């Protein structure tokens, strides 16, 4: 009898050791996404938008949900990626979709690294202000450099060549875009899932829960935060770049406070720090806004405001948090 067996026999140790295992229900989102492709061929534009939003929310989940970096400026990286793809395609320098997506990730990662190195020295309100100002800085730069970015009007009708030289991007019937975004989302999701269950991801959770103690056990707190912020920025850049490719245009809305606030709302609505919150939140938000926002924009805003207030007051872990506590209550009832 070794120590390992007695330790692994403990239920808590078992639960910890099995945390990263793939559950059966984890296939559901992907099956649904594929089913959507066949069931609603007319709504694939909306579906593509939804998948991009999930990817963007997932990138924020890494920074906010796992590392606990409260940022109001995550659209900075989304916009950086979108403008990278946009400017490269508009100037005719580089248009190939997959490689320009990688370039978008690199540019966003660079901005994330550079800003993270200085911003993440601070916490709380100062950090919030700094992320907000960084995004404002990028937005104003994009507005000013009209020669390259098109200023307020943005860059319309980007020339995007067929994917892998085979599949045409058709703006009216976005089959290719949908599957392309789905594939990229899947790769990014698998990467994120592996990352958060790795020792690196565990240390991020540790920093979120108790920074002081992580310092005390000798974890390189700032380096971990900066790396996480950079990865998150790169993923947001991919989301932005793929958004620009799927829509074939870029404008200032990719960089604004509205986009940053929306993705934050989506993530919190679904539940942050739990991977699938991005999926649930994006589906709930986008479906509601798709049907309500166009018909009753004011009522939609009122409802969204009320929802946010209610979440902040009562349901701090979003829809998935509510689901969890419901399940726990049911289980307790069954046990008693």
């Amino acid at each position, binding site marked *: 009898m070794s120590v390992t067996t007695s330790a692994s026999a403990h239920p808590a140790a078992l639960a910890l050791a099995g945390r990263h295992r793939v559950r059966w229900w984890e296939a559901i989102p992907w099956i649904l996404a594929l089913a959507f492709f066949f069931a609603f061929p007319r709504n694939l534009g909306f579906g593509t938008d939804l998948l991009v939003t999930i990817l963007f929310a997932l990138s924020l989940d890494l920074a906010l949900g796992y590392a606990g970096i409260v940022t*109001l400026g995550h659209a900075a990286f989304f916009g950086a990626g979108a403008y990278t793809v946009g400017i490269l395609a508009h100037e005719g320098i580089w248009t190939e979709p997959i490689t320009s997506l990688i370039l978008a990730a690199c540019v966003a990662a660079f901005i994330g690294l550079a800003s993270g190195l200085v911003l993440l020295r601070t916490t709380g309100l*100062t950090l919030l*202000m700094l992320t907000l100002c960084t995004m404002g*800085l990028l937005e104003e730069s994009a507005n*000013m450099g009209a020669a390259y970015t098109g200023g307020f009007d943005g860059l319309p009708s980007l020339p995007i060549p067929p994917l892998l030289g085979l599949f045409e991007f058709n703006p009216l019937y976005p089959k290719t875009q949908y599957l392309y975004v789905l594939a990229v989302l899947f790769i990014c999701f698998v990467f994120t899932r592996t990352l958060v269950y790795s020792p690196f991801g565990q240390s991020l959770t540790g920093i979120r829960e108790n920074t002081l103690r992580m310092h005390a056990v000798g974890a390189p707190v700032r380096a971990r935060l900066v790396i996480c912020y950079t990865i998150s920025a790169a993923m947001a850049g991919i989301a932005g770049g793929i958004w620009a490719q799927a829509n074939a245009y870029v404008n200032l809305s990719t960089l604004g406070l509205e986009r940053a606030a929306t993705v934050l709302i989506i993530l919190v609505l679904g539940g942050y720090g739990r991977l699938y919150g991005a999926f649930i939140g994006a589906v709930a938000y986008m479906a509601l806004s798709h049907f309500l926002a166009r018909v009753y924009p*004011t009522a939609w*805003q009122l409802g*969204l405001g009320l929802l946010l*207030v209610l979440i902040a*007051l009562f349901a701090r872990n979003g829809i998935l948090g509510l689901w969890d506590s419901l399940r726990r209550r049911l289980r307790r009832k069954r046990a008693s």
Partner: protein
Amino acid sequence: MIFGVDVLSMLLGGMAAGMVLFIVSVGLSVTMGLMGFVNLAHGGFAMIGGYVIVLTMRRWGLGFVPALALGFAVTALVSVAFERLLYSRLYRATELDQVLFTIGLVFIMIASVTLLVGPENQPLILPPALQGQIDLGIIQYRTYSIFLIAVGIVIVGALWLGFERTRVGAQIRAAVDNRRMAASLGINIDRLFTITFAFGSGMAALGGGLGAEFLGLDPQYPLKYLVYFLIVVAVGGLGRITGVFYAAALIGILDFVLKKYLPQGGTLFIYALTILLLLARPQGLFGGKPT
């Protein structure tokens, strides 16, 4: 001589804008300093006040000063209701919850105003005495700008006296410096905060009304100027009345000058300067020692 006049007129215009920023932001600075509450809905109270002031003047024919007083009172009352019912539940919550809650509140305010009044801009019609130009000896300048500067200086003087010389002011200063210590000395922090919150929102209402002439007044107001208010507070330091005054004057003048000479990228410089400043002095330009 022409150059001097130019500089003077720019300083005056910037000062006038800065005073509006000051009047709106001062309450935010004190409430954030007092409770560490990230209140992104502060601009919403400025908007509510602005609407009360502008609409009562136009629809009920109320005078400018009574309308300002009414706007102050109504907004202060509304904010007390919000503070007691909602804000007070979140004092110990995380920043993220406070941010979400106040963004939600901003959305509710924007939607309610759009539903009740409509989405269009509401112009402020100035009383005749404040219209036109005034002769300052050296130059002719807009009467209303001079009026704003005068009001701003009177308010900062009064607030400074209240802060430094009254019992409540001393309690607020004590609580900003060290909330736990102040509480254990028997200061009722919750009541203090309610008073400060109401007063600060009332001030924001005044700012919303006074500034409606050149900031405009439409339902998007709280989001449009949110970053400006936050920058003023961050630069001025939390819970510092004079700090917010200098910061507001500085940003008002800077914005005015930059908009004139660099109409495209003026805001860029303000963002860049704010980032540099916050990195060098996270407690703000005029804030005390970091706590």
